[in-house]
């Protein structure tokens, strides 16, 4: 019989063989002094390597490692920022004030013809017979009744509102940027 080759020897030593091959190799080893000597030699090497102790660290490397990590940027939690809260409140107020004016203006600004053109375009949708497929639930479309302003609804008021909104937006952003992200580490 041939001597064990490198791969067989390796896999036998690493215990990576199936039972049948392992038995075959052990049978060869029992009758072959030369291959047995090789195995013993390698096994001695393996145990030498196994016995090599770990060496202790002489200093804790943690502080150095942490000091060299990239600095984290704390993302501010928006709803906790006073500036964000202020801006949100102002936006809501300005929208409540501005919407009635805007809706009143819209009807006069947009030419009536574009409305009719739009409705004509959508007409096929209305006339489609959905009953053959399913019964459409009935929808009642109605605009919510919006509060009216006592000061009148002219373009000047709208401009004033937009202008004050822009200023408040600027102040809000300035204070947001000034609250610097906290840097840790």
């Amino acid at each position, binding site marked *: 019989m041939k001597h064990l080759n490198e*791969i067989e020897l*390796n896999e036998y030593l690493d215990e990576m063989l199936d039972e049948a091959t392992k038995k075959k190799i052990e049978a060869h080893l029992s009758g072959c002094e030369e291959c047995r000597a090789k195995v013993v030699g390698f096994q001695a090497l393996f145990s030498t390597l196994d016995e090599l102790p770990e060496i*202790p*660290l002489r200093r804790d490397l943690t502080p150095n490692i942490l000091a060299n990590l990239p600095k984290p940027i704390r993302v501010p939690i928006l709803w906790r920022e006073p500036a964000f809260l202020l801006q949100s409140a102002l936006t809501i107020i300005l929208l409540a004030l501005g919407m009635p004016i805007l809706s009143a203006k819209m009807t006069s600004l947009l030419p009536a013809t574009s409305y009719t053109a739009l409705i004509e375009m959508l007409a096929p949708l209305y006339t489609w017979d959905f009953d053959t497929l399913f019964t459409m639930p009935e929808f009642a479309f109605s605009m919510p009744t919006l509060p009216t302003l006592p000061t009148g609804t002219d373009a000047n008021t709208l401009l004033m509102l937009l202008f004050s909104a822009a200023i408040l937006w600027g102040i809000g952003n300035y204070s947001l940027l000034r609250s610097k992200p906290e840097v840790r580490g």
Partner: protein
Amino acid sequence: MNIVNDRSLIKLAAQGDQDAFGELVQLHQSAVFNIAYRMLGNRRDAEDATQEAFIRAYNAFGKFDIKRPFRPWIKRIVTNLCLNQIKSHYPTLSLENGLPLPKEPNPGPEAQTAKSEKDAEIRAAILSLKPHYRAVIELRHFQELNYEEIAKSLDKPLSTIKSDLFRARKMLAEKLKELRL
């Protein structure tokens, strides 16, 4: 090692919690350092490689599946780091025949007994191997990876790993025989 604790630390560290990452470093730095020390042969370089490996791990947390254990991952990072380092610094002239073996300049108290003399010689014998042989010895014998894992880790075909491992062992056995260990 407490795996549950490890996992919650990984989760926090992956979110950028540096205190949690510091705890991970404390848990694993010794194992990582020892790999680097076996592969590089001196404390200073091994400490540098250990630090570098942890910093890389921190920066690569995005690519890491946080459900997996941290230790094999950080070991792989440091092994490849050291391998690249020794490949780039390895002299074109082979060290394998007769050149003086690298020794630690300051052996310290642990090198005084006969046992540690012997250990130092084993380390030196490993260090005298070419980088790719040193890597397979490290991965098979110290990190206990199987052939497939070694092949994957070093990005080489299985057949190459098998023959490298055999040659590395053969050379190491001969060196140790010369030293009558």
